[in-house]
């Protein structure tokens, strides 16, 4: 899931300063799970903005604002309210915001900061798990990603900054992911793969930025 956090209200108000009439778009997928852009948060945001003297022309929670088809479908019934607004406040991740920009041709203000692709343990406990590096090596690392979870992206084991199974980054409070990988692969009887020399990563696999997947 894409993990998001709501920006501070002052920052949102600063961006919305030139606009009086606002339409709010929420996200029915990731931002709903994160409780940063679901039905409830959209309602709360509308109230906050009204208190700040804004006029809310309407709101909608799009099933997935990052999906152009769903965005078009879910905004069809609020076309007038959107047209009536000077700006859209988008409570979705960066991909959602940009899909809105591309398809609704309206000044769009991001309400959230996009943090990472991660695991939700519960609300308020989100952990980064994938960097979308374009070349998944999880099989070689016991299903634990060092590209994402090692601050140095080590590929061949822990660095000298590992102490007592903890990582030097963050003051030895967090697990060294290479120790986790080692333990896991030992359990799985996969140490032969662990021991193999991993060559430097091939960054051409990342693709040319911005990345595209286009079936031909």
């Amino acid at each position: 899931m894409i993990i998001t956090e709501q920006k501070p209200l002052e920052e949102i108000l600063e961006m919305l300063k030139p606009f009086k009439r606002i339409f709010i778009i929420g996200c029915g997928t990731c931002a709903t799970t994160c409780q940063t852009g679901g039905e409830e948060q959209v309602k709360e945001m509308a109230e906050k903005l009204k208190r700040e003297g804004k006029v809310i022309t309407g709101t909608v929670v799009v099933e997935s604002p990052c999906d152009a088809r769903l965005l078009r479908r879910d905004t069809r019934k609020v076309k007038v309210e959107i047209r009536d607004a000077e700006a859209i406040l988008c409570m979705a991740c960066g991909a959602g915001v940009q899909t809105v920009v591309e398809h609704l041709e309206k000044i769009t203000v991001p309400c959230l900061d996009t943090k990472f692709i991660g695991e939700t343990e519960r609300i308020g406990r989100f952990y980064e798990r994938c960097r979308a590096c374009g070349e998944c090596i999880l099989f070689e690392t016991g299903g634990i990603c060092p590209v994402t979870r090692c601050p140095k992206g080590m590929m061949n084991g822990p660095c000298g900054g590992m102490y007592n199974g903890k990582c030097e980054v963050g003051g030895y409070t967090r697990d060294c992911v290479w120790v986790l990988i080692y333990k896991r692969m030992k359990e799985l009887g996969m140490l032969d793969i662990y021991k193999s020399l991993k060559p430097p990563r091939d960054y051409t696999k990342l693709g040319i930025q911005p990345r595209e997947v286009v079936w031909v």
Partner: protein
Amino acid sequence: MSRPVFSELMAQIRAGKFVFTGELEPEKTIDLTETLEAARRLKGYVTACNVTDNPQAFAYISSLAASYIVQKETGVETIYQITCRDRNRIAITSDLLGAGALGIKNVLALTGDHTTLGDMPQAKPVFDLDSVQLIHMARMMVDEGVDVSGNEIKDPPKFHVGGGANPNADPLEPELIKFGKKVSAGAEFFQTQVVFDIETVKRFFDEIKGYNVPVLIGIFPLRSYGVAKYFDETVPGVKVPEELMKALAEAKRIPDKKRRRQRYNEINLEYFTNLLKEIKKTTPAAGCHLMSVGYEEIIPSLVEAVK
């Protein structure tokens, strides 16, 4: 299989001598007077001197520039330290070629402390390679005359490539596996993290006995109680032994500066002469790496005592 010898360090290791290396840490300056002075004090007592590459991620003068100047001005052979933190493989290739051209004969390839620990924590951490990959890349350059992508190097550099190791690592197994990877990648020598007790050294050699590669054990003489305390508190996983700490604490209370200094030196000499002798006598260590930045005065008597 006998590889060519490029450096005095490797020549002495091959000859079976118990070698000493020292450490120089040039800082945020273009004036290398202090570094050169330190190098001169070590000259004759150590075979080669490491020159650190932005240690603890503090942005200092280039270790390549400093390595070159030290060799040129003092004649002390250097071990040029290079880390993966600040350069991608293009920049590292370029620096290694530069090192070759500048007459650097030994390279110590390290991952590097993370940027967030340093004095420019806002910097982008690079880590395009890790230490194992860096060792392999450097060896490919020297041995096969190709860069990491297989492109031919017209005139390849000639230096020895070493790696780091940590006998104190906890858990130790992943560190040992990585040690093995570094050997496979082509590490020709190792210099270890600081060790204070002979048991840790012995245990480490026990674990790596399958590998036939020279290892220099890291030694850190403690100039004062303050240094010892700082070390104890900031270098995780390495504890200054209690009795040594106690002796230094007692010395600290000596009011007369000269006598205090003398006592500090005595304590260090006693403790580390014993440790070095033990290492030399009872382990297969190829030598010791003396990290005595700011405390070079102890080295001559220490080395003499072990001879």
